[in-house]
């Protein structure tokens, strides 16, 4: 991919992000923040790429692995925590029935 087309990707991605969450009830601010935060752990793909491309370079393998660990900590923890919060909201209706 040329740099210019990557810039287009960046621009369109940003616009998409701006459009996606126009109206959010305050109730969902915390879960949304935490969910979006988990998605920002997508940098785990960069860490994976680094490890695969390391070709036996030990320091690079280690850096990649640590980076992958940090990213997955973000991703797994983020999604679990968000689910825990949202579980509390969705439990209410079932309690009433």
């Amino acid at each position, binding site marked *: 991919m040329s*740099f210019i087309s*990557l810039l287009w*990707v960046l621009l*369109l*991605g940003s616009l*998409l*992000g*701006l459009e996606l*969450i*126009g109206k959010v*009830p*305050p*109730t*969902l*601010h*915390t*879960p*949304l*923040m*935490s*969910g*979006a*935060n*988990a*998605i*920002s*752990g*997508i*940098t785990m*793909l*960069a860490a994976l790429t*680094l*490890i*695969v491309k*390391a*070709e*036996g370079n030990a320091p*690079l393998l280690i*850096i*990649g*692995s640590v*980076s*992958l*660990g*940090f*990213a*997955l*900590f*973000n991703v*797994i*923890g*983020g*999604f*679990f*925590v968000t*689910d825990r*919060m949202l579980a*509390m909201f969705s*439990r209410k209706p079932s*309690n009433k029935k």
Partner: protein
Amino acid sequence: MSLPVIIKFVIDLLAVLLLALGIKGLSKVKSARDANRLAAFAMSLSVVGLLSYYLGTSGIAIQSWIWIIIGSIIGSLFGAILAKKVPMTSMPETVALFNGCGGMSSLLVALGVAIFPISGGQENFDFFKSLINEVSISVSIFVGAITFTGSIVAMAKLQGWLSTPGWTQSKVRHFVNIVFAVASLIAFFDLINGNTSSIWLLVIVSSLLGIGVTLPIGGADMPVVISLLNSYSGIAAAAAGFVVDSQLLIVAGAMVGAAGLILTQVMCKGMNRSLVSVLFGGSLSAQSTASSGSGEYTNITSCSVEECALTLEAANKVIIVPGYGLAVAQAQHTLREVTKKLEQNGIEVVYAIHPVAGRMPGHMNVLLAEADVPYEQLKEMDVVNPDFPATDVVLVLGANDVVNPQAKNDSSSPLYGMPVLDVQEARTVFVIKRGMSAGYSGIKNDLFDLPNTSMVFGDAKKVLNDLIGELKDLGVGEK
């Protein structure tokens, strides 16, 4: 195009679509939980796509597999354990910590690529040959480092491990931060000029900048800062996407970055503060000492739990105003017991949620949801404000600045213009508080001086427990 390239293209496209749907769904109560799972699925799909691509093209060496597995297991395990164990009340700190680690990950990727340029594989992986790569590496390191140290400081401050040092409230901090910023700029250009060793200077000064910017910010503004740092971690991921040439990373990072900015803006609006004043204004308490805020109280009425119970028993409509103090005292379940008793007596109970009550947007909703408070009883500020004049009793629990009438009446107050809950319109207001200390803004609360306000001093949980006892003695809620 070869088959692996096509497969990866399709999977990436699908992943972006699902992530977008996930973020969209997270903004509606009904779909939020499924949306979160959808986003998690999209993330795992993207990993499968990437790995299958490399398996189909260059192959993945055994060593690489070993390090992938080690990193994955350790990271996932710690993440899962923390997510399961952490109490709901420490959610803001937890999100800050996760966020910081995301930033750290982007930082490390850029650092790895910069120090050990990868020899070209099937693709054009000629790092440090093009200006673009150097720029994206520098940006990734810069933003990643700020996100990491900023988030860690935010977490430490919320946990109470760090207080706001005095010097950070003086003008000195601007000077210090400008020095850090200029130094990172110098390192940035030095790096782009091909001087690889200045990468460490960039790491150090941008880390210091993250600390220097976050440290002076007061507790009341922390939600805004966490949200902003969340946006940064998206930008860091997008920058890392440029480093490893991944469109998926750029799109996802940009989406999170933009969504985080919107959320930050929403929060600033709720506090009637601009982002600039949050970031560079220091904590509100520092300003208030210079202005009208630090006046003395002249007309404080304190009352016993018993009186409070008697008034509650006679009420028809009660509004509860929760704040951060409720979370600190872990009194949400006790509060729920009190309101249950009142409801059994036919008293209408509603919870008034200020948009920035607590240390995070939606903090109170999460807290009350944990105590099984029905969702319909939580009313937002704009909805509940017209109801106060027709309300008999308002119970303020650990909230302070969000019920300060100064924001409406006193144009010299630092709070002036911030939307507040008009609790003083109600017939009687009880403020349950440990002492006369000011709220996070450090400003005197005129509400406490009003004739229809009574203070009930004590820890929220203890007062509420006593209240349950008193209500029991009065026969409230026992049919």
